[in-house]
């Protein structure tokens, strides 16, 4: 009993620390729908990233976070692996040949074997994710000194990060663009040197990932949702 209480206390302390040390993040999610959607139990989604010479490629961690978020919670979606999808349809989704617009889908599906291969994978929606996270501003200073008698850090460092991602959703069953969802999250992180450095981290990428995944799930599951939705939420 005593041990359980202590365990609960530790959990509470951990949660409080996480809440305290998490910086404030502002997230903005916007949606543009071009056609009706809906997904059946046996249909799957694949998340793809572009790796062209010039394009900024969404980080592996971001697409993994999105995939995890889509596959859990209420109405989880079935995710198909990006590598398996690209291998099965080789070379049509390779960077040099992948369609850049949903208008090219009918032509792509017309190639011998392509439609059959897609049917084998059960993938109905292709979600192209672009974007990235960057540090837009930073400043402050901190000094650390140590000696035999002890030591510590004094000062303040801060940096502002901006995570901006966009998902373009293509429907392979009714070939064409289904819509776009974009997520922007920004926040400032701090490391305060009060003898011990105390980090207060704004997890902008996580906020953008969760915002985008949540909206994408609604977008795909909902049959007739239309219009634009704005969400502003503090993190965590």
């Amino acid at each position, binding site marked *: 009993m005593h041990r359980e209480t202590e365990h609960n206390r530790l959990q509470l302390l951990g949660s409080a620390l996480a809440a305290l040390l998490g910086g404030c993040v502002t997230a903005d999610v916007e949606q543009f729908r071009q056609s009706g959607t809906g997904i059946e139990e046996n249909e799957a989604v694949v998340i793809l990233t572009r*790796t062209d*010479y010039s394009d900024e*490629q969404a*980080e*592996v961690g971001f697409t993994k976070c999105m995939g995890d978020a889509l596959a859990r919670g209420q109405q989880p979606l079935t995710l198909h692996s990006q590598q398996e999808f690209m*291998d*099965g*349809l*080789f*070379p*049509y989704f*390779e*960077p*040099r*040949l992948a369609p850049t617009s949903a208008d090219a889908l009918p*032509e792509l599906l*017309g*190639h*011998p*074997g*392509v439609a059959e*291969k897609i049917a084998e994978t059960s993938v109905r929606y292709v979600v192209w994710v672009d974007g990235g996270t960057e540090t837009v501003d930073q400043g402050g200073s901190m000094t650390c000194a140590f000696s035999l008698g002890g030591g510590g850090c004094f000062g303040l460092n801060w940096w502002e990060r901006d995570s901006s991602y966009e998902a373009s959703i293509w429907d392979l069953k009714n070939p064409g663009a289904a819509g776009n969802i974009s997520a922007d999250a920004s926040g400032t992180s701090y490391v305060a040197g009060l003898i011990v450095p105390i980090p207060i981290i704004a997890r902008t990428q996580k906020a953008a990932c969760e915002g985008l995944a949540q909206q994408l799930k609604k977008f795909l599951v909902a049959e007739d949702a239309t219009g634009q939705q704005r969400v502003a939420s503090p993190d965590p």
Partner: protein
Amino acid sequence: MTRNPLAPACGRSLAAGFIILVAIAPGACVRTVPVYGSAPAPLVEALPLDVGIFYNTGFRDASHRVERPRERPWVVEFGAANAELFDEVFRNMFERTVHIEKMPEGGGTVPGVDAILEPRIEEYAVLTPDDSGQKYYAASIKYRIHLFAPDGGFIASWPVNAYGKSQWRAFRDKQALRQASLLAIRDAAAALALEFDDQQQVQAWLHDKGVLRAQGN
């Protein structure tokens, strides 16, 4: 107290040796990056042709030394992956393929084939995160593909510029460089699979042979 008269000279030699060792050490400790992997079978309809495949030594044993100031050099060994990925693609592009050990010379001919394909590597280049200021490794390989008649006569030749990019992660430089090189080879394989009969000289040759690709492929 006796003193060894050789001691100062020996000390100096040791110091000099140590300095030389420190100076050459970064160059000596080469980091080898063997590139390996496979290509999936391409979704293309095989052309009804028997084709001989010839890989020269420079292709099969291809490697490239990447040197940057104040860094230990990398040696990227991508020859084996080249042969493996190209083999998989050629096997699916043509009805039958056979490896040719050497090109026909002096009026000789390779029996039982309609043509001989020889890919050659002209250039390999790497872009490191330090070079680009971006968090990725990029590799580019410039190939030239030659198509010869069974007697070695010229049919066609065209360049394939391939590119691969892999995200950099801390302490995973080797993996990123390997992945970027593998993706470049895969990019070349993709180009070969779909763009082979886009070449004018190849089209003319296929026309002469009475070979037509299925529509939409």
